[in-house]
């Protein structure tokens, strides 16, 4: 039982880390100007990394949005477009 719990925790940590990496990459893509907006769909456990991702987005000066749609279990993450004032903009988490 203990072993199962540890394994689940490790898998969750691995999944959230991967999700965060994908979000950070998307933030860099928008911040660098290569994309106007990046939408990340079917990303596992985005809520768990939302706070940290938002901090990254604010630091990079891009919009961050967690959009939930009816009938779809996981919310999608929308990165961009770039906000007018980096670091100080308020980003809504819905």
């Amino acid at each position, binding site marked *: 039982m203990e072993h199962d719990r540890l394994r689940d925790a490790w898998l969750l940590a691995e999944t959230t880390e991967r999700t965060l*990496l994908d979000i950070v990459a998307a933030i860099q893509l928008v911040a660098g100007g290569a994309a106007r907006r990046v939408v990340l769909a079917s990303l596992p456990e985005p809520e768990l990394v939302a706070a940290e991702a938002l901090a990254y987005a604010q630091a990079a000066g891009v919009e961050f949005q967690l959009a939930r*749609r009816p009938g779809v279990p996981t919310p999608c993450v929308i990165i961009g477009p770039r906000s007018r004032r980096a670091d100080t903009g308020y980003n809504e988490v819905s």
Partner: protein
Amino acid sequence: MTDDRPTLHDRKPGDRRVRVERPHSPYFRYTGPGMLTAKAAASLAPAASRGPLERFRRSLFGRRLSNEEEAFERLPKKLALPIFSSDAISSSAYATEEIFRVLVVAGAGALLISVQMALAITVLLAVVSLSYRQVCRAYPSGGGAYIVARENLSPLMGLVAAAALLIDYVMTVAVSTASAVSQAYSVIPALYDIRIEIALAAIALVTIANLRGLREAGLFFASPTYLFIGLAFLVIALGLAKLALGQGPAYVAPEAQLVPLGTEPLGIILILRAFAAGSVALTGVEAIANGVPAFRPPEAKNAGNTMLTMAILLGVLFIGITLVADGFGIRPTEDGGRTVIAMVAASVFGDGSALFYAFQAATALILFLAVNTSFNAFPRLAAILAKDEYMPRQFAFRGDRLAFSWGIVALATVSGLILLAFGGDTHALIPLYSVGVFVCFTLSQVGMVKHWFTVRESGWRWRAVINGLGALLTFVVLCVVASMKFTSGAWLVLLLIPLLIAGFLTINRQYAATHDQIAMRPDQVAPAPHREERVVIPVSGINRAVVQAVNVGRVISKDVRAVLVSDDHAHAEETRAAWERQIPHVPLVVVESPYRALTGPLLAYLEVLDRSWPADREPPITFVVVPEYVPSHWWERLLYNQSTAELRRALLGRPDTIVTNVPYRREQPESFRRLQEHEIARDDPATGGAPGPKDRRGPQPPAAV
């Protein structure tokens, strides 16, 4: 596949029930434990064998040959003589004229020494042939001057010889073709205006013949060579007989067409220039020594004897034609006029006679076919250089017909371009010709002297003397040829040789550097994979090819994401919604790009993906799994996968990145209909997902979809 042998009744009851399964038998033959040998069918993709391109290729070049059939491609002496000697023998058709063209500036009297000049060149030919006969015996694996110089002098000297030889082979094709065309317009003057077109067509013909393979090329070339030799001997015999009987020539060219007699004094420079011009007669002598492995066993002996036969034939023809031309007082003509050998034939047979036309046709043919000597020798030398990593490795690959296809095509291309550049003018090309030949003559003879001093086998002293004499004479002639022809074109060859060597060395360094990087130490044990993998799948929407690629990606790693680059917001939203519904377990990254390109934003995405990876961990291997639709027909390829090809090119060489193509083949309409019925039945809750009767009859759906 089940073996169709009859059932064997043996002692044990179970023996009757044994089925021998040999799924590989249509394509491979079992040749030992863990060893399969490919049959002809294995090298021919089933789809390719049906295509119109393949049918055309087969009709042009013939069926594919297996390596085992190479033994039957060895040449008997009677075929090897025309193949390897047509270049040398055919030079008797223009060598006399080259001497005459130099001597004519000193007046009619100077032309009289052309016979002595031909005799001196024939003595040189005898020495060179004897020297090369020894090369055949000492180096039965072929390679000629390159191998001899490389092994006995130094690798750099070997490269000098190789560069000179390659230039010589290219020039042989250009000069012989141009000269052959000049024989043709000696008879039909109207052909002068289309001489380049004829020359290029002839090169194309010889190229195709050589791509078909050695033996068939030999049969193709044998008869014109023997016809020329026979008719040339007839011309010489009848000409000498006429001269002995005091009869005049049957044809005299109009004075207006002839090069005017000059008044220059006959000095040593002019004599040396005439000697240098006539020394083109020696070109092609080394070809037999380069092609020893192509002879039937005993290769070295057969090659040596063929060399001797060739030297005797060439010497007799050269002296004979010069004697007759000199005896009839023949002078060279201006550009576009008859060649000296054509005038010799007309003087003997009579202008317009059947024998004259036959001789002209045979001369033109042997000159056309003389290029075949180069087509045999150039690819072999290029293959040896490629094996030594001085030329691209493709030159060492044999084509379907056991010919070195790359070398053949390269030779045809370069010589064709030279012919175009020089306007198909033989006399403009000749100054570039013999310098390279004498460079490799000298190097190989010096190398042979060193060889005899090293091996010291029976009779080494007199062998060394023969090669030493050859080295001395050819070096003197090299100096004469290079200095006398320097301003008229030899400078170009002297410049090209170091450039080619620089190219060889650059290629060699490149291969060596690559080898150092990819080689494994003999004591090194391959480590287990230790880096993380992640998968990026570029998609344009949702379809069966994409689903298959996603499934392949999920086999590679758990870390998979699809990437859609789009400049169309509505399309992106639509795809995202469909993705969340249909492929919910794989993340989709929709990159809304302000530009309309796929490759740039995707590369940028891969860059940021790399940059966002934690610095304290080893970077992962990124698999870019590219879904690719495989069209049913060749013409459909123009319609699909263009951006995929561009993406593959862009990702080539990207660090830590592996590009994986996942082809999706279109089903036949009937199979696809059954596949759809199967899927509907499987997904329909009413049938409980059980396959219907049709499904059991039809093909199974692709596992990946």
